[in-house]
C-alpha cells in the first residue's frame, strides 16, 4: 500500500475536513452480551483545529480516541482521513498511516525504557525507513525544541515525569505529522508541569498550525480548546465552540 494518505483526494464536500466520522459504532463482544462503546458518532475535525474531547470515564472517549488515531476500526460506520475511507483497512496499512500522519502523546508517556532519549525520538523516523543521519539530526532539533538537548543520552528512567512527557512530545513531532493526538497528557503530571505541556502544545498549534486533539476528563484543559466535544454514554452530547486567542 503506497497511497500517500497525507495528500488524499479530498472528494469530501467539506474541503478542510481532516478526520470525519459518520455514524460510527464500536461494539465489543463480552461473552454472550454485546456492549456498545460508541453508538453512532458523527464528528468532523478540520485541519489546524485544537479540539478537546471531554468525557467521564466509561463515556467511550478512549474508544473514540482509538478510532481517531487509526489504532482501531469501527464496527459500523465510516471513518474518513483526508477524505479517504479507512474503516476497512488492515493492520499494516493502518500502521503506515499512523506512522506518517499521527503523533501520539500518552498519559503514561510510553517511552521505550531500553532506548535513550534521542533514540526514542528517532524511533518513529526509523519505522519510516528514514536515513539514519537525517533522523538523528531531526531528533536533535526536536530535543532542542523541547529543551532537553543535554539529556539526549539519558534513559527515560533518569528523567522526571515532565521531562519524559517533553520527550514524548518531541517523539510525536518526529515525522512531522498532521495530527497530534494526546490521551490525558497531563494525567500523570503536577499542575505546573501540566500547564507547561499544554502551553507547549498550544504554541505548536498556533505557530505551526498542527491539528491537536486532546482526549481528557480534566475540565480545566478546555480553556485551550477551540472546540470541546462532550462525550457521554457513547454519544456526542454537545459540541461547544470557544473563542480563543
Amino acid at each position, binding site marked *: 500500500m503506497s497511497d500517500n494518505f497525507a495528500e488524499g483526494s479530498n472528494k469530501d464536500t467539506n474541503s478542510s475536513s481532516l478526520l470525519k466520522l459518520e455514524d460510527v459504532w464500536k461494539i465489543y463482544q463480552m461473552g454472550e452480551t454485546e456492549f456498545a462503546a460508541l453508538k453512532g458518532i458523527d464528528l468532523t475535525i478540520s485541519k489546524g483545529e485544537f479540539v478537546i474531547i471531554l468525557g467521564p470515564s466509561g463515556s467511550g472517549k478512549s474508544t473514540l480516541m*482509538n478510532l481517531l*488515531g487509526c*489504532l*482501531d476500526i469501527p464496527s459500523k460506520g465510516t471513518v474518513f482521513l483526508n477524505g479517504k475511507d479507512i474503516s476497512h483497512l488492515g*493492520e*499494516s496499512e493502518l*500502521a*503506515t498511516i*499512523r*506512522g*506518517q500522519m499521527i*503523533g*501520539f502523546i*500518552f498519559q*503514561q508517556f*510510553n*517511552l*521505550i*525504557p*531500553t*532506548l535513550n532519549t534521542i*533514540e526514542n525520538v528517532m*524511533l*518513529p523516523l*526509523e*519505522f*519510516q*525507513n528514514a536515513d*539514519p543521519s537525517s533522523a538523528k539530526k531531526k531528533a536533535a532539533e526536536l530535543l532542542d525544541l523541547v529543551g532537553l538537548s543535554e539529556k539526549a543520552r539519558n534513559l527515560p528512567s533518569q528523567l522526571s515525569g515532565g521531562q519524559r512527557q517533553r520527550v514524548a512530545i518531541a*517523539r*510525536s513531532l518526529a*515525522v512531522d505529522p498532521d495530527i497530534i493526538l494526546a490521551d490525558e497528557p497531563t494525567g500523570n503530571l503536577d499542575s505546573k508541569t501540566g500547564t507547561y505541556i499544554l502551553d507547549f502544545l498550544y504554541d505548536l498549534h498556533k505557530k505551526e498550525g498542527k491539528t491537536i486533539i486532546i482526549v481528557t476528563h480534566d475540565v480545566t484543559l478546555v480553556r485551550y480548546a477551540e472546540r470541546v466535544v462532550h462525550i457521554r454514554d457513547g454519544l456526542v452530547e454537545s459540541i461547544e465552540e470557544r473563542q480563543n486567542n
Partner: protein
Amino acid sequence: MRNSNYLKMALSILLHSKIRSWLTIIGIVIGVGAVVGIMSLSENMQKDMEERLSEMDLTAITISPGSSRAMMSMGPGGGGGGGSSASSEDTNLTKKDIMALKSVDGIQYMYGQISGQEDVYFLGEEAELSITGVDPQVWQYSTTDTVESGRLLEPSDNYVAVIGSGVAEDVFDNEVGLNQVLTIAGKSVRVVGILESEGGSGDNSIIMPIDAAVTLIEDAEPDVFDTIVVKAESMDIAENVSAEIEEKLMLSRHVTEKDQDFSVSTSASMVETASEMMESMTLFLAAIAGVSLVVGAVGIANTMFTSVMEKTREIGTMKAIGATNKDILMIFMMNSALVGFVGGILGVIVGSMVTALFPLLGMQMMGGSVSVGLSPTLTAFGLSIAVAVGVISGVVPAFQASRMKPVDALRYE
C-alpha cells in the same frame, strides 16, 4: 525499518535485560560447549586413528582361539604386544591348524605366536613383563617395528630377545643396554635389539623366538599357539583370505558357525571396529549434548514469552507510532538470535577450554598425539547452531508479539 535498526533495538533489549535472560543463556552455553567439545574430541581422535592406520600393516590377519571376537589384540603389527590373553581355556591353535591353512591362496606367510606374563630379572630387580614368542624366520619381515639399536630376530636365534624401549629405559632402575642379559624363568636371555618407542603397550614387551619362549612361559607347550599370524599377499585380498581361512579352519576343526571356537580378524577390520566404537560413543555423547541444547532452546523460548508479555505496552506504543507487524516480529526474532549468538560465543569458549583439557583427562592412551585447540570450522558451526537455536525458540514468541492489537497492547497493565 532498516535491518541495522532492528539490530539496534534488539541489542538495546538484550543489554537492558534482566538477570533472568542471562541465566537462560547458560543452557545454550553448556549445550554449544558440549557439542563443540565432543566434536572436537572426535575430530582429533579420528585424525589420530588415521595416523595410526597409515602406519599399520593392513595385510595382517590374526587367528585367535575362542569364539569371542578378540578385537583388542592389536595383532603382529603392534610389535607382538599383548597378544590375546587366552579368551578360551580349552581351545588351542596348533601346528595342525597351520597345516590346514597351507592350501589357502594369497598367503604370503604365516606363523604361530605365543605370549604370556613372566617375571623378568635384571641386575637384582624384578618385573612382570609380557613375553611374546614369534617365528624368527618371518617375524623380521612381517613386523612394522623398527629397531633403535641392535637388530631384529634372526632365524638362528635362540635365547635372545628384542625389547621395547620401555623395557630398556623405564622398567628397571638401570637402563638395559644391548648384549646385556635378562633372566627369565632361570634362563639367561641376551638383548640383541631395542625397538623404537611407539607409545603403546608394545613398549613394555619382550619379543623372543618361539622355541625359546615356549620353555620360559608357564603353561606354554610346543606347537600350541595363542595366535596365528597370517600375512596376505596384498591389502586388497586380505578380506577374502580371511574368509577362506575361516572356512578352512571350520572344516578342519569340525565346527560350525554356531560352535566356532576360534576367530579370524584382519587388522583392517579391527581398525574398523575400533573406529565404529568410537563413532557410536561420539554419537552418544553428541546426543546428550543435543539434549542440553534442546533444554536451552526451551529456556530461551520461555524467557522470550515472558519478555514479550512484559513488553506488551512497549509493543503497543511502537505499533501506535508506526511499527508494522513485520517490524515487531523482526525486533524480537533478532533479539532471540542475539541471545543465541552470545550463548554461542560463550559456548565456544567453554568448548575450547574443554578441548584443551583433553590431554589431562587421560587421553595420552590414545598415543599422546591428540592435538588441542578448536578448528575454525567447528567454531563457526558452534556459533551457527547457537544462532539457529535462538531463532527457532524465538519464532513463536516473536510472532505472538507481532500479532498483538495495538489497542489491547496499549491498555495492558
